[in-house]
């Protein structure tokens, strides 16, 4: 794939990939991780034989880089935050069900939400997640299992709520 072909295919995916990185590693690290991933993807672009698989290919590279970041992360706390919190929204007008999924996943403890996002946004297999995060495959297996279980419970509860909302109660 040529340089310009790469850029052309990347352009419509920019926002999506940024969101993915944001979801997995958080705001502070997202741009760093994304840039490293894109650069290495660009350098390795000839490895992609069939350009129609660009999207899954680059998704995987970004997801892998995110996993690496999580693994290398130390504990850094923002200064002056204490018990304060800020919510900054850049999205408007989306389907409520979609946003529900995101919020529900976000409510999981990080060890569960990380593997869930790596799998369902990053399309990674359990083995790949294990490699990326540097943890045993069995641990990934059980975290996914528990994470999905919790999600189902939360979605069931939400569904009841949504049903109530929609029926105007």
């Amino acid at each position, binding site marked *: 794939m040529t340089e310009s072909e790469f*850029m052309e295919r990347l352009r419509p995916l*920019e*926002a*999506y990939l*940024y*969101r*993915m990185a944001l*979801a997995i590693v958080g705001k502070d690290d*997202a*741009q*760093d991780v994304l*840039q*490293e991933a*894109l*650069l290495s993807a*660009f350098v390795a672009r000839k490895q992609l034989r069939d350009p129609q698989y660009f999207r899954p290919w680059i998704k995987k590279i970004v997801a892998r880089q995110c996993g690496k970041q999580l693994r290398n992360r130390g*504990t*850094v706390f923002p*200064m*002056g935050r204490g018990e*304060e*919190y*800020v*919510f900054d*929204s850049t*999205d*408007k007008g*989306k*389907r*409520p069900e*979609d*946003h529900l*999924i*995101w*919020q*529900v*996943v*976000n*409510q999981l403890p990080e060890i569960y939400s990380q593997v*869930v*996002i790596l799998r*369902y*946004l990053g399309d990674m*297999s*359990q083995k790949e997640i294990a490699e990326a995060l540097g943890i045993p495959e069995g641990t990934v*297996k059980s975290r996914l*299992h528990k994470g*999905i*279980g*919790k*999600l*189902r*419970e939360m*979605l*069931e*509860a939400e569904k*009841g*709520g949504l*049903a*109530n909302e929609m029926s105007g109660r």
Partner: protein
Amino acid sequence: MKCQDVRIELLAYLNDELSSEDKVTIENHLSTCGFCAKEIVQLQKTERILKSGLESWAEVGEKVNLTEWLQEESRKLSNKEKKKEFTKGFAETKMLKHKWQKVIRFAAVALVLVMLMASYWPQLVKASTQMPWIGPLIKQLVLRDAGLSWAYEHGYMDGSLATVEQDGVKLTVLGVIADPTQTAVIYLVDGIEEDFSVYISKINGDGAASWTSPATKTSVGTIGIAQTYPLPEGEHTLTVILVEEDRDAGRRNERLSLELVTDRENISKLSISYDLDQEVTFDDISVKAKRVVYTPTQIMVEYTVIGGTGVGGAIPQEYASYLLTESGEKLYRVRSYGSHIADGVRELYEVFERPADVSNLKMVIPVQGKHQEINIEFSEPTTIGILDTDIRFAGWVHEGNMIEIEMHYEKYGRVKSITGWSVVDEGGNTEELTIWKGESFGAYENPGDFAWVTTKYELEETDRPVKLIATQVLTIVEGNWEIILPAIN
């Protein structure tokens, strides 16, 4: 093969990650076990919802500029062999750590002159006159926020330069925008290779909460915005710091610090503020609206919440506050700040985009309650009352490692359901019921009637007599509370 061993492999099975042997084992089990067969159907459904939900969420991403940056980086890559310009053992990894790249080409001479002038300290100089090229950069930066953008366009940025330099690292403040809904310091940093962040660490000497947005790397340094809460009216001294991030050690080192004075007078004059005195109480939660501010582009509402949980920045968008316009349009908040000022007391500010029509605006705040710990053993069918609502325990069935529990609720779903169960056996060993719902179905008749819900849970250990104990209740206080916003003359 036992059900629980099969269950844990189902995800891998669905994703075709198992060896052909293991696949056959699983399939054999599925053909004979009704429970697991149902389970896999549920799993597939959940995976579908998850995947499509996450995908659509990710699709609606903000505008970012990666391709141009990549093009520039690739150019640098190919030029690397020709130019031996990097001292300090320039390694591939260092190159990869650069922030957003945007190339601005200007005459080098003019640049040097301007930088020389800007580096005089403590001389204050107007940024716009001394660095004419800075305008477009700042404009690009502030575009992401309607309030900042407006302030900048209309000349409400205090553009006095302030700068500090030490050991070759320089921090320059290009301007401050202080409006009633936020405070933003626009900065330029040069001379540092490591990860860094710029924050507002103090306001009038007191510690402040601050955050930053992604910075942009230009040929003269990195430009970005450091933000903090909106300031009260009048003059204030801000302390701005540059912090080096040491990720390996998990530490931050403060490298530079400077102080500047900003004044919130100007935009305030264009803003209108009203005191509010509206209050409502739900169960043990009381919410009190204090003030609303209308700026040219945004509306901010201040209120206090006492008791309850889940109100404020931590709650999901569906339960987030919104402005309700006369035409029925919902405007969700753009920003919110909250702090615990005392035990159980939270002060919140929410900022919304200001709609064109500001007559008959209401702000709607959904109020949420909390989990309650209880410890009630269920044996016979019985009714328990929790917070004025009846929850009727109708019965339960225990077979092997599956437990089915039937409950009757008033208004199932959003109000008061039991969310935690455990069992205790004769040896006194307790086990929390795994929140797997192999099957959960319920129905409710007319509003006000009881709804019945049957839920299946799974136990780790099988075949032993146990007692069933309810351990937790989710109390969600129903309520959307409306604040009527005064119309502006």
